[in-house]
């Protein structure tokens, strides 16, 4: 603990200074401090963007930390190996790409995710398609973590790779894969995804896949799919459809959303009422009038709740 504290006291101020270009001499990196330094350096890399990352890379090379990170990468200790992997990802060690790909494909969850993050940083053009092909079927990879990883890349590079991965999964009839990949849409450019999302909505019959595709809808021109799915037998799909109608729909959706207000599912009624209140030009007076006209008590109660929510906003 004391050694870790001492290393932090020495190196944290230096790392902070080297986020700017500097030429002054650095103290030698003692072997006993090297592990602590690499971890501190990785944290600093995670917290900065752009040129500061280049300056920190230069600092690590001057200190010989890149060689130490390689030793850590080959270590038998899992913790050292993980820190080494992250550091080499930041240092963009291209020669490691094949070993990282092997780790991604067959390693346990934590090391494989760390390897994936490193590979994406080293070379997004290899890393992103590799990560997507694995993420489609590795259930021990949380999509939340994969999305963070992909968000670090330019969304223009993720969109085509994601569309292509979805098409491959569709061609294999892999509904689970298609659904998982569609849920990564937030990391991609919406325009690049539009065609594939439309294709999934037009061809798939799987309710989970359709719900994921609805969530990825980005263009009002494709809203016909949401209108069609508002009458689907699966309640969660009707919920998703109602939500999208609130986001992308127009005044022509008032009648179908009013019908959905009488749905047997509380959630469909709730989302339909929310969607109605979000439609363009729908004001409080119109909503109140609609609530007063409704003969279904549950529908009227729900609309009154949404009205109250809207007034309190």
């Amino acid at each position, binding site marked *: 603990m004391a050694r870790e504290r001492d290393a932090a006291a020495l190196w944290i101020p230096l790392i902070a200074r080297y986020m700017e270009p500097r030429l002054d001499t650095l103290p030698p990196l003692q072997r006993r401090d090297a592990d602590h330094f690499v971890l501190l350096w990785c944290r600093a890399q995670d917290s900065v963007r752009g040129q500061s990352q280049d300056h920190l890379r230069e600092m690590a090379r001057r200190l010989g930390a890149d060689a130490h990170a390689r030793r850590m990468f080959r270590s038998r200790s*899992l913790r050292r190996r993980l820190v080494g992997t*992250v550091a080499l990802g930041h240092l963009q060690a291209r020669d490691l790409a094949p070993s990282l790909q092997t780790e991604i494909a067959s390693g346990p969850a934590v090391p494989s995710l760390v390897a994936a*993050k490193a590979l994406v940083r080293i070379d997004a053009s290899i890393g992103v398609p590799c990560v997507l092909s694995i993420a489609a079927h590795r259930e*021990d990879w949380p999509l*939340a973590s994969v*999305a963070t990883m992909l968000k670090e890349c330019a969304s223009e590079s993720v969109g085509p790779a994601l569309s292509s991965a979805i098409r491959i999964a569709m061609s294999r009839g892999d509904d689970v894969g298609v659904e998982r990949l569609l849920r990564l849409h*937030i990391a991609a450019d919406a325009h690049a995804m539009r065609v594939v999302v439309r294709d999934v909505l037009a061809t798939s019959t799987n309710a989970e896949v359709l719900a994921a595709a609805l969530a990825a809808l980005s263009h009002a021109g494709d809203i016909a799919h949401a209108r069609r799915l508002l009458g689907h037998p699966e309640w969660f799909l009707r919920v998703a459809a109602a939500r999208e109608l609130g986001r992308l729909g127009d005044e022509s959706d008032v009648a179908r959303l009013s019908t959905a207000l009488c749905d047997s599912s*509380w959630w469909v009624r709730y989302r339909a009422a929310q969607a109605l209140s979000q439609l363009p030009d729908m004001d409080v007076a119109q909503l109140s009038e609609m609530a007063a006209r409704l003969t279904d008590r549950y529908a009227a109660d729900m609309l*009154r709740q949404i009205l109250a929510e809207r007034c*309190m906003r």
Partner: protein
Amino acid sequence: MNWHAVIDVAAWLFLAYFVTLGAGYLLLNACSLLELPRQLESRLPGLLPRPHSRYEPPVSVVMPAFNEEATIAAAVRSILQLEYPEFEVIVVNDGSRDGTLEALTREFSLVPFPEAYRRQMETQPVHAVYRSTSHPNIRVIDKDNGGKGDASNAGINAARYPLVCIVDADSVLERTSLRHVVLPLITEPHTIASGGCVRIVNGCEVHGGFLEKIGLPRKFLPLAQVAEYLRGFLFGRLGWVPMNAVPIISGAFGVFRKQALVAAGGYRSDTLGEDMELILRLHRLNRLAGRPYRIAFLVNPVCWTDGPESPGVLRGQRIRWQRGLGESLAHNRGLLFHRRGGAAGWLMFPFMVLFELLGPLVELSGYLFMAAGFAFGFISPAIFWSFMLLALSLGILLSISALFLEEISCHTYSRPGNLFVLICMAIVENFGYHQLVLLWRLQGFYRWATSAPAEWGAMTRSASLQKDR
């Protein structure tokens, strides 16, 4: 067979029980040591990609409250400071007879709200739903008194989000607790519930619902509870994680997938141990139906709760807990040795019956039998002292090992003086305190066995908590 032989056999049986008890807990310790590296590994700072906030499902935090006028506002403020992208707070005023509702109305500017209340589970009648005008994510449900389970169910009925976090109104959560405890539900699709460690807040500095400084209580009883809680959580629960047989997620702090909770029927309102009963029921229903599921327990999300400072209140609490344990096990006896019961039915359930439910009876009988036998000369000094040495050293060993687990995992009590005090406490509590708690638990066992009417008693909040929170 003469009576000497009977006494000898009984003495050996008691010894054997204590040895089995010790072996059982030490095995749990070993399992905790297996699980800890896995949990610590996933905590390696900055190495794993952080979950993207868009994928952190919104959480409904449900806080049942009964006569919590003094602390309710601070408790809600403690929830509002949580680091989490999206959550709502649903306080359920369970027919309080004090000014709980008025305190909430005053503090959070509540107004009546025309909620389309969704009755997924039957509860006592709901009178009104209020919403805060200052904090749009706070709602208050005012209902008839029905107990904590009933109030929790009313909160779950009103919950809008897919994950429901149940917290006590006398608890303080660390800022990152919710983010940590939700992780298993994000990363493992089959996880239906997740709980974290509960610690004793007495001795800590809490201001306005914020935990500002961690410390140890000065009084003996809360200090002994600190050592007890470490034992209870760090291997009493963590040890069962690798087998997916966690027996309880504390009612003070746990997160559930709402769908699973509703499908199981929510909390029972006719038991004093509704939190344990629910977890055992989730095990029973899912195991017997052959559904894949997981109940997670993590060491790092910490919830701080008020420990009783007076013997009377502590006694009442332990009687209730033991009674709740008996009721929970009885309600879910179908899990015991069921062919689909797995580790929950074949290991955890018998363990809970043998060592937790019957433990006070057998242990206290053992102490009394040995002491009487030694006093009247029926039992040789060698057997008596062996028994006492075994019983006491086992208690000390288990407490010290819990401290060791705490040091390698959370290192919560970081001041060197604190560690010294806890080591002393781990030794001292085995001379009198442990036996006193056994006696109270035996009373709870008796009340359960004889179906005596249940009583909740009144919880007296520690002075520091009332003053500062």
